[in-house]
C-alpha cells in the first residue's frame, strides 16, 4: 500500500514550461507538486538551449583564436589553439549544474514541492509516482498540468543505439572531437551544432531532404548563413536523403537518385522533435489529441476538465519561451485569474553563424494574409558598431515589414552577428502595436546594433539616414 497525497496543482515535467508554472502557482498561494524525472530545467537547461549556447560560444572563441593564429589581425597574433573536448564538456556541465540547482532553489523558495520520480496516470486526476528508491506515492490533484516536453526524432535506419550515431543530446556530451561529422537535417538545431563543430575544426557535411536550409525563414534571411557555410568549407547536400551508415561514412541519395558516400566519424541526426506522449498514462486521462500533440484551447485547457497542457506537448513552435509563457498563464488561471495565451508573435532565434531573428510575419506571409505592405531593410554593414565587432561582412541586415495603410509593424527579421539580442525589442514592438514612426522616433543608442532597427523603419518610411534611397 503506497502513501497518498492530495494537492491543488500537480505539474508533470520540470522543463521551461513546467517549472515556471510551478513557481508562479506557488507564488499565487496554491499547493503545488512538481514531478520530474529527467532533471529540472528540462531539455532547455540540460540538453538544449543552454548547453548548446555554451558549446557554440566556446566554438566561436576557438574559431576567433584560430583565425588570429592563421593570420594576425588587429595586431593580435598567437599560436594555433587546441581544444580538449573533455574539459569543454565538463565546463558546460558545470554551467548546466549551476543553473539546474538554481531552478531547484527557486522552486523551493516559492514553496513548490518537487518529487524526483516517474509519474503514471491511472485517471485524469490521479497518478502514481515511482520515486528514486522504488518507493511509490499516489497523488490525487484538483488540477493537472502536463508539461512532458519532447524528444529527438530517431530515424529507423540511423538508430541512436549505434555509438557513431548521435542526437543533439549526444552531440553536446562528446569527449572527443570527431574529425568528420555528417549532420542529417539542416533545420536550426542541426545548423547550430554543425556550425559549432565546423568552428572547432571538424569537417562537417549536411544532408537535407528539402532543397534549402531553414525553410521557416525566407531566402534573403537565410542567405548569409548559406554563404558562411560555403566559405567555411561545409558541404551541403540539399534535396538529398540519408540512406544508412557505411564503415567510415554515410550514404545518401541525391535528387537524381544517385547514391553517394561521405566520410562521417559521427552522424548527428537532427530531423526534428516529437512530443513525449507515451509511458506515463496519457491514454488513461481522456484528453483529445491534435495529431501527435495534446489538443488545447487558448487557455491551454485540454478536453478534460481540470487538465492543462503546456510547452512542446501542445505543438509547434517547440520553443522554451513559448512553454514558459503558457506555464505562467496556466498558473494564473488556476489561481482564479482570467487569462489566455494570445501573443501577437512568438519570436524565434537561430544561433547559427550569423544569427537569425524572426518575429511576426515575413513579407510573403503578410501578403498571403491579405495585407498590403511596405518593407524597409537596413544592412548591418552600414553600422559602425557592427563593423567594429567585425560583424558587417556577413551580409547581415534588419528588415521590417509594416502595413502600408497605417504603418503598423507586422514583422521584423534580422540576420547578422549578435542580432539574437535584438529579439526582445522586436517582440516588444509587435506586442505594443508599434508603428514605423514609433520605431524611427525612439532614440537608439549609438553605437549599437539596435540602430539598425530604427534605420530599417526609417527606410520603410523612405527616409533612411545612413543609406541612400
Amino acid at each position: 500500500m503506497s502513501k497518498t497525497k492530495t494537492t491543488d496543482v500537480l505539474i508533470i515535467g520540470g522543463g521551461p514550461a513546467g517549472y515556471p508554472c510551478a513557481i508562479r502557482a506557488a507564488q499565487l498561494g496554491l499547493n503545488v507538486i512538481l514531478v520530474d524525472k529527467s532533471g529540472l530545467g528540462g531539455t532547455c537547461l540540460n540538453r538544449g538551449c543552454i548547453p548548446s549556447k555554451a558549446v557554440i560560444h566556446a566554438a566561436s572563441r576557438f574559431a576567433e583564436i584560430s583565425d588570429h593564429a592563421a593570420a594576425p589581425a588587429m595586431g593580435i597574433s598567437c599560436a594555433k589553439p587546441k581544444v580538449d573536448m573533455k574539459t569543454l564538456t565538463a565546463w558546460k556541465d558545470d554551467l548546466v549544474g549551476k543553473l539546474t540547482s538554481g531552478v531547484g532553489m527557486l522552486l523551493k523558495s516559492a514553496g513548490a514541492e518537487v518529487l524526483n520520480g516517474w509519474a503514471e496516470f491511472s485517471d485524469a486526476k490521479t497518478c502514481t509516482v515511482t520515486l528514486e528508491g522504488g518507493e511509490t506515492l499516489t497523488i490525487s490533484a484538483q488540477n493537472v498540468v502536463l508539461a512532458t516536453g519532447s524528444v529527438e526524432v530517431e530515424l529507423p535506419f540511423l538508430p541512436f543505439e549505434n555509438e557513431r550515431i548521435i542526437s543533439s543530446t549526444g552531440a553536446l556530451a562528446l569527449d572527443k572531437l570527431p574529425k568528420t561529422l555528417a549532420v542529417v537535417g539542416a533545420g536550426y538545431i542541426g545548423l547550430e551544432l554543425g556550425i559549432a563543430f565546423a568552428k572547432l575544426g571538424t569537417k562537417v557535411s549536411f544532408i537535407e531532404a528539402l532543397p534549402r536550409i531553414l525553410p521557416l525563414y525566407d531566402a534573403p534571411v537565410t542567405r548569409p548563413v548559406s554563404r558562411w557555410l560555403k566559405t567555411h568549407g561545409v558541404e551541403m547536400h540539399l534535396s538529398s536523403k540519408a540512406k544508412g551508415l557505411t564503415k567510415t561514412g554515410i550514404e545518401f541519395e541525391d535528387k537524381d537518385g544517385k547514391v553517394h558516400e561521405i566520410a562521417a566519424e559521427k552522424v548527428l541526426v537532427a530531423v526534428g522533435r516529437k512530443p513525449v506522449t507515451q509511458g506515463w498514462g496519457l491514454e488513461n486521462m481522456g484528453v483529445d489529441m491534435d495529431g501527435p500533440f495534446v489538443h488545447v484551447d487558448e487557455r491551454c485547457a485540454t478536453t478534460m476538465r481540470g487538465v492543462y497542457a503546456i510547452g512542446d506537448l501542445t505543438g509547434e513552435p517547440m520553443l522554451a519561451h513559448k512553454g514558459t509563457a503558457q506555464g505562467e498563464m496556466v498558473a494564473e488561471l488556476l489561481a482564479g485569474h482570467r487569462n489566455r495565451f494570445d501573443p501577437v508573435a512568438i519570436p524565434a532565434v537561430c544561433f547559427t553563424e550569423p544569427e537569425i531573428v524572426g518575429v511576426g510575419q515575413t513579407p510573403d506571409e503578410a501578403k498571403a494574409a491579405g495585407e498590403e505592405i511596405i518593407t524597409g531593410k537596413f544592412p548591418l554593414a552600414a553600422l559602425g558598431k557592427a563593423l567594429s565587432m567585425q560583424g558587417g561582412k556577413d551580409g547581415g541586415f534588419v528588415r521590417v515589414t509594416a502595413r502600408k495603410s497605417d504603418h503598423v509593424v507586422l514583422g521584423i527579421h534580422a540576420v547578422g552577428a549578435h542580432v539574437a539580442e535584438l529579439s526582445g525589442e522586436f517582440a516588444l514592438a509587435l506586442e505594443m502595436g508599434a508603428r514605423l514612426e514609433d520605431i524611427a522616433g525612439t532614440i537608439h543608442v549609438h553605437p549599437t546594433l539596435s540602430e539598425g532597427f530604427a534605420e530599417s523603419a526609417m527606410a520603410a518610411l523612405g527616409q533612411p539616414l545612413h543609406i541612400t534611397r
Partner: protein
Amino acid sequence: MGLLSIKLPDVGEGVVEAEIVEWHVKAGSSVAEDDNLVDIMTDKATVEIPSPVTGVIKSITGEPGDVLAVGTVIVTIETDAAGVAEEESTEAPILRQAQDEDEKDPPLKATKSHPRIQSGASSEPTPTPHPEPVEERGGKRPLASPAVRKAALEANIDLANVPGTGPAGRISHQDLEDFIAAGGRLVARPASHTGRAKRTGTSTHKIIGLRRKIAQNLAHSKRTIPHFAYVEEVDMEALETLRAHLNATRNEGQPKLTLLPFLSMALIKVLPDFPNANAHYDNEAGVATTFEAVHMGIATATPNGLMVPVVKHAEAMDIWTLASEISRVCTAARNGKANKDELSGSTITITSLGALGGIASTPVINAPEVAIIGVNKLQIRPVWQDGAFAPRKMMNLSSSFDHRIVDGYDAALMIQRVKTALENPATLFM
C-alpha cells in the same frame, strides 16, 4: 501552347481611353472561353470584356481606377486554342496610375562611423509574391499592449469594441478605462447615462469608375456654368384629376402614368418657343447648337450612382409611349443594362427626387446642355382663392439654366409657360 494578347478594344466612337472598373481574373487563374475578364468603362457605359479562349492568365495590366489607352494590351492568356501562335505581348502604357511603393531596398552608400566605407551589400531579389494571395482582410486584431489586452480580458471586454485614440487606433489603458467608465461593458448598445464612446475611425476608398465620372462631370458643370436657378409653384389639381382618370381607364398594356410624362409633354410644348433652352453649348468653340428634336434626359438614381438615361425624340411620342420609354430607359440604367446610345445625347434633362420631394432644389446642369428642370414634392397646401384659403395640390418646379445662353427673363418666362400648360392639362394634348 501560345500566348494570346488581348488589347483594350475600341468600345465606342471616338473613345481613346477607358477606365478599368473591376478585374474578374488575376495572373495565374484559369479562364474558360467567354468568361468575363474585366469590366471597363467609357463615358458612362460599362463594358465587359470576355475571354476569347480557354487558358491561363499570364499577366494583367492596370488596376481598378487606371485609365488605359485603346489598343493597350490588358491581358495575356496562355492557351492551347488553335490559331494562337507564339506571340509577344507588350507592356501597356498606363496613363495615370497610383504610385506604388512596396519594397524599399535602397542601395547602400555610407556608414555612420565610417562615412567613407562603401559596402558590398548584395543586391538581393525581392521575395517573390505569393502566386495567388488570399484576398481576405478583416479579423484584424485590435492594437493594444499585452497589459491592456489582459486588463480587457479580466473586465470581460472585447477590445474590438473599444475605440483606440492612439496612432493607428491603438488602445491605451486610458481608452479602456474610459470605455469601462462609459458603461462600455454593455457593448451592444450605446451608453445610457454618461455619454457615448467617441468614434474615431475613418476609412478611405478610391473614387473610381462611375463615381469618378460623376464627380468629374458635376465639378465641370459647376465650375464652368453660371447657373441661374428659378423656382415656381404649380397648381396640380386639374392635372392630378386627369392623371387619375387616365390611370383608372387605361387599357391593358398601357403603362401607369407618373408626373414625368406630363412634365415632358409640357416641355415639348413650350420648347419650340425657347430654342435656346433646348441646346448644347460648346464654350471653347463658342458655338451653341439648338435642337428641333427633344431628347429628354431623365436623371436616375442607380445602385452605382447617378446616371442620365435618355428618351430620344420625345417630341414624336404620345403620352403612353413617353411613359413606357421613360420607364424602360430608367430601368435599364438601374440594372446596368443601358447601352451607350441610351446614356448619351440628351438635349435637356428632368430631375425628380420623386416621393422624397423637398421644397426646392438647385439642380446642376448636365453639360453640355443648358437647362435642367427639377420636380419637387406634390403637397396639399393652403392657397388664397376667392377670399378664402383653399386646400390645393401644389408642386414646385426648381430649374437651372446656363445663364450664358439663356437670359433670366426668358428662363422665367419659359417656366411660366410650363406652369400654364400643366395647370391647363388639356392644352398639353393640342
